[in-house]
């Protein structure tokens, strides 16, 4: 049963990924990406990470991609403004061939891992409580640093987004 769920989610994730890079309309791509992200959220749930599952759905699919969609609609791009991409498929094929050694390398390295059960663990593992304990006991530094990072990106976004007063000059 778990296998079937995993397989379904994986197919959706991969299909969404391919859709994302193949659609020429950014809107369609973004929707494909959401499919992938939600599938990934499901896989997180399979991997005993319910909290991350929530975060993935709410924060990623819900917030970040919504923001992306908003920007796409905000710019209101017409079809004829989209770049002409005649060599897209050939590049993808060449790139895929070049990526083969990279994938082989990594999969070979993981292949030697001893087999171990990956069933969903008990209630506590991956719950908000255990997650919070881990975060605030051990990972406080990066967590706090994230706030600095967000501040920096906030300033950056403000700089970029504001209308320029010297635009004419």
């Amino acid at each position, binding site marked *: 049963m778990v296998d079937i769920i995993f397989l379904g989610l994986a197919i959706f994730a991969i299909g969404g990924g391919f859709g994302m890079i193949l659609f020429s309309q950014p809107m369609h791509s973004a929707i494909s990406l959401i499919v992938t992200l939600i599938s990934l959220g499901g896989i997180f749930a399979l991997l005993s990470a319910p909290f991350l599952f929530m975060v993935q759905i709410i924060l990623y699919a819900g917030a970040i991609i919504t923001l992306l969609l908003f920007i796409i609609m905000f710019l209101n791009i017409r079809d004829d403004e989209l770049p002409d991409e005649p060599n897209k498929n050939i590049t993808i094929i060449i790139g895929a061939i070049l990526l083969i050694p990279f994938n082989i390398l990594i999969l070979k390295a993981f292949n030697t*891992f001893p087999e171990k059960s990956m069933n969903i663990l008990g209630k506590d593992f991956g719950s908000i409580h255990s997650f919070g304990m881990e975060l605030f006991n051990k990972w*406080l*530094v*990066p967590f706090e*640093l994230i706030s600095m990072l967000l501040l920096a990106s906030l*300033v950056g976004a403000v*700089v970029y987004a504001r209308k*320029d007063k*010297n635009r004419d*000059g």
Partner: protein
Amino acid sequence: MIDFIYVLPLFFVGLGAISLMIVSTFKSVTIRKGSITTLVFLSMAFISNLYNLNTGDEVYSHYPFIDIFNKMIIVDTYASYFSTILILGAILTILIGIHYFEKHKEFTVEFFSLFLFSVFGMMLLVHANELISAFVALEIASISLYVMIGFEKVISKRIEASYRYLVLGSLAGVFFLLGTSFVYGATGTTTIGTIGDMSLNTFATNMNLLIIGGTMILITFLFKIAAFPFQNWAIDVYSGAPLPVTAYMAATFKAAIFGFVLRLFIVDFDLIRDFWDDALVYVIILTLAYGSFLAIIQKSLKRMLVASSIVHTGYLLIAFTSISALGESGASSIIFYLVAYFLSAVGAFGLIAYISSDDHLRITYDDFRGFAKIRPYMAAMLSIFMLSLAGIPSTIGFIGKFYIFTGAIEAGNTILAVVGIIATFISVYYYFKLIAIMYFYRSAEMTNVPPLKGVAPVVIAFIALAIIWGGVGNTLVAYFPGVDLLIDMAKLSYESLFVG
């Protein structure tokens, strides 16, 4: 309390960044006020950092707030030393850039906020003792830089450079995370020091994964310092950026990256380094060749300096490969060369930024025809920077190269030393071309050359003096970056991370 003193430099810089962010909304805060505030915060950080650095001959290693920070931040002599370089670099960048920022009206106070954020990120990077924290620090520095590059967003090439750096930088960053995940998979930890301990106990099967993880991290590292085959972005991004930012990236950011990578690779990745030493030889040769070829054809001075910074990356990597055989002295030659390059590059970029800040008349070599006639002091300073970059004796650049090449030979990498020396000879061509053009050609029409006035030229003159000073002899150098001290520090960071 003592823990707090240790993180005081970081605290000041971070505080400065947030304060400037808040005050940037007020109209009354001008660029000048903003830059002075930046300098005040940086100076406070500098002084508190000197306190950390100056513990006599004792070297130390300390994890502040160990129960909360969980060994993710380390304060040791090594990190304090790098922080000194970084803060000093930031101060010099601001001092040299004031003129430039005032002349370009696009710049606002937010720029200084972002600037301090990036300094904060870089300092954090050299203090980081854990891969994820290091990545966050790297991202703080990078994101600030992306925006700083594109700050004058009405200029096409600025935002283009920003875009290119953002896309490729993020792409490279993903490899860091991928590497981190592999390292975690192989050892079950991401804390520097523990990785090394674990790697000694791990089964040989997982060793491959650790090596792959280290390689992925190395890819990010090679990208950020613009080494072959990840060097393409450098010339575009650097030449698209405003000149003071270019100087800052080429000199200071590179130092921060090396600061972190040296820690990581000295402490934990002995194995990967041995594994990579053979391959790095090709990377270095190609980096040197690519940079040299690119630099030799440039007509624009800025692009030439940028292309030659790729060559200097090659020199630094030569020292990097010598570490496995020489340990401390290999590491210290990198640190010394970083300082040498940092001074020369900041001076050269800064002076060109100063000269071309009013108008954009002096950009190519030809625009400097007969420059010595009109501005002899500036020409002399520019010549000093070129001499130092080319590594001519009695400049600090020569001593830096000397350490690197002798180190490479001692470590048995004679080929690299020879290639490096050939690259040096080629570099003489493009550096001396400027000197020759300034001194030996009839002057072109020179209009509106900025006079020697204000803070920037004085600072640049001091840098020029420091370059000569550093090249004259070891007696003086001993107090300057301190060769013996460097060795001690490299030693300590090695020991402390295993002990602590």
